């Protein structure tokens, strides 16, 4: 027993690391206009969608990978990746037609797709590598007028909605990974909540990477029409593999007048092993636009997985009185790297934003909060409150806070608070002298540190997230 040398070295137990044996269809390696055309054709897309992709592809070809984040990795060979992988069998029309191997996979992950066994009150869209394999509770939802389907289906069935909103929050030219995603995205979820409708259940997408050497590029678009309300949750896992895999997703949210969108993420992609081999590169662009008056977008994320996380869920606060929130827990252990935070762009009058970020670093990991609060000239009476707390476990890890504040309106109020602390030995000893094991003590202290964020998660997932935090830190104190 040596509490005095608090070190983060032990193996992390990742229980989602299995692979599924299933016949797959893959396109040839590498990216070209031809591959973009192939993906579009495979999806049976209309011409406008193909044109949109090709434009994005042309933009991407001229762009450079961003280098400003505090992350390090060997160069990614984009010509060596597969850009499309899907179960070979034709797309299932109903749950009864879904390959039993796939159903088993999701069951193992704790996401039963059988509606009778499903989590009460949660509709799930399951995305396996490049395609959506099942969406539950579609009938219940359609009775309320809610559209919840794979985005590939929305492109065909609801083109007017997709054309009106796709790429309006995150344009293809936004950044390197957004352009790449726009060119090759293969699936993801589409949600439309009509005027005045409160979505009758939680919506959830479960992303699973299975195929080797394959990038996953999903695209999610959520539109909440006037006075509509929706709560959406995404979860992610991947097998344990020695090589790194790329995940470059784009999520766009649109909230119209009085609409409320709550978007929660429990990100548990494979983080790599204790030597830092393997793991997912999670390079994701997430942004929401509060277009209508008094609209609200709330991001909550618990990020424990991935070798590298590069992710800044943001809000554009355009509508008068609109509200943006960002609640984040980012935990890194072993050799994980996270550079994550948010952007709150205040355009409208009396807009408010809240940022609560909790970073936990253990092992040899590096954890950076990077955030921008921008008050534009027209944002009379805008307010922001930011709190960034970092917790260090051991003495080999790093925590960094990089806040940017730009204000062009003198009436704006911006507050920023930041703390950095270590799990103190006397805290551990105090807990242990009351009968708690060392690991229970660390779990208790870390969960206490994250409480302000965890309480924002939907109830069913808050419990899951608490367990995940403890598991991800297993052996980090020894």
């Amino acid at each position, binding site marked *: 027993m040596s509490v005095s040398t608090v070190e983060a070295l032990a193996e992390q137990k990742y229980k989602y690391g299995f692979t599924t044996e299933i016949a797959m269809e893959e396109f040839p390696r590498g990216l070209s206009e031809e591959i973009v055309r192939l993906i579009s054709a495979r999806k049976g897309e209309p011409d406008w969608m193909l044109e949109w992709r090709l434009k994005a592809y042309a933009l991407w070809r001229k762009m450079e990978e961003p280098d400003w984040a505090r992350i390090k990795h060997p160069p990614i060979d984009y010509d060596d990746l597969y850009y499309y992988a899907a179960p070979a069998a034709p797309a299932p029309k109903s749950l009864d037609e879904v390959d039993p191997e796939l159903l088993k996979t999701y069951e193992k992950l704790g996401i039963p797709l059988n509606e009778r066994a499903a989590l009460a009150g949660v509709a799930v869209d399951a995305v396996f590598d490049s395609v959506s394999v099942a969406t539950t509770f579609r009938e219940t939802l359609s009775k309320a007028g809610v559209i919840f389907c794979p985005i590939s289906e929305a492109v065909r069935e609801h083109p007017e909605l997709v054309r009106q909103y796709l790429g309006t929050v995150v344009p293809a030219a936004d950044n390197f990974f957004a352009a790449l995603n726009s060119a090759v995205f293969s699936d993801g979820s589409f949600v439309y909540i009509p005027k005045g409708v409160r979505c009758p259940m939680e919506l959830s997408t479960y992303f699973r990477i299975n195929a080797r050497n394959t990038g996953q590029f999903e695209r999610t678009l959520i539109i909440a029409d006037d006075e509509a309300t929706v709560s959406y949750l995404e979860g992610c896992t991947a097998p344990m593999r020695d090589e790194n895999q790329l995940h470059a997703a784009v999520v766009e949210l649109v909230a119209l007048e009085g609409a409320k969108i709550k978007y929660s993420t429990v990100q548990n992609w494979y983080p790599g092993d204790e030597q830092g081999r393997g793991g997912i590169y999670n390079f994701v662009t997430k942004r929401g636009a509060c277009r209508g008056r008094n609209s609200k977008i709330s991001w909550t994320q618990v990020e424990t997985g991935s070798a590298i996380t590069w992710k800044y869920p943001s809000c554009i606060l355009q509508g008068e009185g609109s509200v943006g929130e960002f609640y984040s827990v980012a935990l890194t252990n072993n050799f994980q790297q996270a550079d994550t935070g948010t952007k709150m762009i205040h355009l409208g009058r009396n807009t408010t934003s809240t940022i609560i970020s909790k970073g936990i670093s253990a092992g040899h990991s590096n954890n950076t909060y990077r955030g921008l609060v921008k008050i534009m000239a027209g944002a009379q009476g805008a307010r922001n409150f930011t709190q960034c707390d970092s917790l260090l476990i051991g003495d080999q890890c790093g925590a960094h806070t990089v806040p940017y504040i730009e204000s062009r309106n003198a009436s704006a109020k911006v507050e920023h608070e930041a703390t950095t602390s270590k799990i103190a030995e006397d805290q551990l000893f105090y807990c242990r002298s*009351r009968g708690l094991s060392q690991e229970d003590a660390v779990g208790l202290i870390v969960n206490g540190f994250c409480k302000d964020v965890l309480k924002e998660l939907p109830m069913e997932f808050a419990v899951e997230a608490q367990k995940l935090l403890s598991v991800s830190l297993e052996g980090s104190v020894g």
Partner: protein
Amino acid sequence: MLEIKNLHARIGEKEILKGVNLSIPDGQIHAIMGPNGAGKSTLSYVLSGRDGYEVTEGEVLYNGANILEMAPEDRAIAGIFLAFQYPVELPGVGNANFLRTALNAIRRKRGQEELDAVAFLKLARAVVKSLHMKEDFLKRNVNVGFSGGEKKRNEMLQMTLLQPGLAILDETDSGLDIDALKIVADGVNALRSEKFSALVITHYQRLLDHIIPDMVHVLAGGRIVRSGSAALALELEEHGYAGLEAA
């Protein structure tokens, strides 16, 4: 029964305890007094298993088991409770959650049934009431924003709930006003039974007006230099510790 035999301990190169001998039979309360730097806190930390103290000689048996080989949590499970001189803050950790986790960890290890949230709250509320504390104690975060007196009361709440066989109070009275002092004393006195013993470490005599000890020991220079009845505390109050170290 606690038996401390020829206990030597050091921090780094500095020897603090230089052969402590002490036995506390079940049902008795013993007080340890002594000047600053005598090794009082070191003794309490060595008994409860804090890191950074090296035992170089001697042994400590509790109910016949050598506790020096046990992790701190196992000592708690064996029935030893340390009331801290400076209770530690745990931000974001609710007091009720902390107490229930601790109580259930101990119950689990002892092969007793764990308490669910409802059963626990019922028990905790009764204890809070018996200690004349406000119920919002259970809702607040562990020791965060507590006054000095509140922190000590919280220690008594924990002690009463965990029902230890041996309580070690490490200068629990320091910095307390007379009302808070009484609460600490009431907490200990309420536990008095044939199965309960306590080691009360204090610099001042005044706590011993409220917790009448069976024996008083003087620790000076890393050794017990005098032992006596409760009257010894009064004598020390009058004459101080001067000259005892040489004795």
